[in-house]
């Protein structure tokens, strides 16, 4: 669905590249996470792929359209949810969606249906300017689905939302993906990426450091550990055992046999820990 080859971009059109020699592919039906700290080049790549920035060097094909000679028809196939909500504050929620739906040449989703989906039912006739930040974000998110896109660009879709709404948004993303929608997710939130993405790319200083599935990364870079909380001589103790080394496995068995176990968790490395390990950089 997306093919990027040797993509480089410099805002000042000089040798100081914000994005350097990027290569990746996103398969149809996949959720591809583009992960990195602020200023890593995530938005630059996304803006090039959505035509908001002109392609300078390299090649990019999005939904079978060559980004070098971008066609307006491409936008019938893609949806874009921005990190910063950008809706007409003087129009109501419904007017915002109704206007946007008329810009497309393909069948669009009923605006009331979308508003219900993102939990804005009953707010159809309220001006977006009166919305809270979270509500505006949900309206922006809803707008990106109006043309039932085949390829959906999501920029920090849950940032600034309260946990229950963020959970609803994640559910919508999963459902759409199950319906066959390809998703390009840009985020610095590793938990979201871990939960949603089939594959992730780590980008730092404009370069992709690694691309793989979260499971593979955990297997490759994470240590397989079990943390046990147990009672010994009327005292609560916590110990961590490797599930790989034989002596640790034996010691774990002994604890299980001889003591009362309070809690026991497998403790695998988080995506964030792997990111730091691989790139040597934090995510903020």
């Amino acid at each position, binding site marked *: 669905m997306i093919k990027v080859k040797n993509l480089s971009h410099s805002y000042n059109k000089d040798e100081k590249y914000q994005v350097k020699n990027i290569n990746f592919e996103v398969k149809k039906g996949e959720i591809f996470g583009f992960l990195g700290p602020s200023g890593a080049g995530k938005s630059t790549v996304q*803006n090039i792929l*959505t*035509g*908001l*920035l*002109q392609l300078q060097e390299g090649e990019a094909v999005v939904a079978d359209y060559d980004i070098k000679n971008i066609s*307006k*028809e*491409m*936008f*019938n196939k*893609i949806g*874009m949810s*921005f990190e*910063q*909500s*950008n*809706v*007409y*504050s*003087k*129009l109501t929620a419904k*007017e915002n969606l109704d*206007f*946007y739906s*008329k*810009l*497309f*040449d393909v069948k669009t989703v009923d605006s009331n249906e979308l508003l219900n989906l993102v939990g804005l039912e009953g707010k159809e006739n309220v*001006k977006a300017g009166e919305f809270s930040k979270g509500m505006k974000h949900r309206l*922006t998110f809803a*707008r990106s689905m109006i043309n039932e896109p085949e390829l959906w660009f999501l920029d920090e879709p849950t940032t600034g939302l309260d946990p229950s709404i963020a959970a609803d948004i994640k559910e919508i993303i999963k459902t759409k993906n199950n319906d066959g929608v390809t998703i390009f997710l840009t985020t610095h939130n590793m938990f979201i990426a871990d939960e949603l993405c089939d594959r992730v790319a780590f980008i730092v200083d404009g370069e992709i450091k690694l691309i793989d599935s979260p499971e593979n990364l955990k297997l490759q870079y994470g240590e397989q550990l079990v943390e046990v909380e147990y009672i010994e001589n009327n005292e609560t103790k916590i110990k961590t055992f490797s599930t790989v080394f034989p002596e640790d496995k034996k010691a774990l068995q002994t604890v299980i046999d001889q003591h009362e176990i309070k809690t026991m968790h497998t403790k695998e490395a988080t995506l964030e820990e792997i990111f730091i390990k691989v790139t040597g950089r934090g995510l903020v």
Partner: protein
Amino acid sequence: MKLFSSFVKELKIASRGFYFYIDIFMAVLILAVFLFVVPDDFENKTDEYLYLDMPEDASEIYLETIQEETIDGKAESVTLEIKDQDKEVELYTTDSKEIFILNSQEDARYMAEEEQEISAVIAMNDEGTFDYTYYLQGYESDKYKNLLEIFHVEPNENVQEFVDNQEVRALSTNVETLSDKESILPTVLVFNGALMGLFIIAAYIFLDKQEGVIKAYAVSPSPVWQYLLSKVGVLMVTTLVSSYLVVIPLMRLQPDYLLMLVLLVTTAFFASSLGLLIASFYSNIMQAFGALYIVMMLMIVPSVAFFIPSWSPAWISFIPSYPMMEGFRSILLGNNDWPYVLTVSGIFLVVGSAIFALSNYRYKKTLIG
């Protein structure tokens, strides 16, 4: 369809914002001022303050001469405040001036010194002729002073005969003119229509940039020119509403309103395209203000030539507001000079289209800038 829905959306946004109402409010305010404050023709009579220092019978003869020139052949008694006192004086009103007959030489000096009025003392000397004393302000030209010096000299017989035999022929006797009040309307139409449009469309663009909605538009299949044209359309509607609001009550059936529609639409198109182009170079209205200010000031310059025809250098006719004003004057006169108005409209349409095309190219490149 996309263009129409964009246009409807822009109209909704405009009607919910304050720029639209500023334009309409200004039109209503201008109409109110024109209807209730501005006279049809401005007062161009001069005031003269005279003291007649002569015997009563001589002054009566002098006043009879003045009275013959008055509009109604009468003098009226009016009160003037002189040295903090109310004084009764006689007022003679002629076609070109109002003559106040004062009661003393001191009053004449007072009017000149304290009220900066033209005053004079006309005294009869021992030989029975008149002596004239003028109190001037100091800024009068030499030509004016010379004129006063020869004003009371009896004309030479030959000169009088020569003047009487002069033949004066008017080259055109059917010249239509607007009243003083109506003469201001073309500038009002240009400033309240085209120039406000230039500024307001830039403000609309910067509002969209600030809200980020321009990015959302950029990732839709709708072309940029439709986004821009829908904004131009709103400015055209605003210009038409505010212009007709002022012109119809004042001019009634005299102008050719269809011709006016053509000129309003084309000038609004030209000015708003220019506003779009200027806005394309800046990120916010504060940055663009300098450029907008310079263009607006430049557009105001031709109004000087419009009101002072003796100062009308050739280069001024190249400033767009000049042909706009001339076009509106022609329409308001109702003289059916449609070839001129259509030519001007055509030029604005062509130049406006070129600027719009350039703006479209700029916005396609820098839509999210």
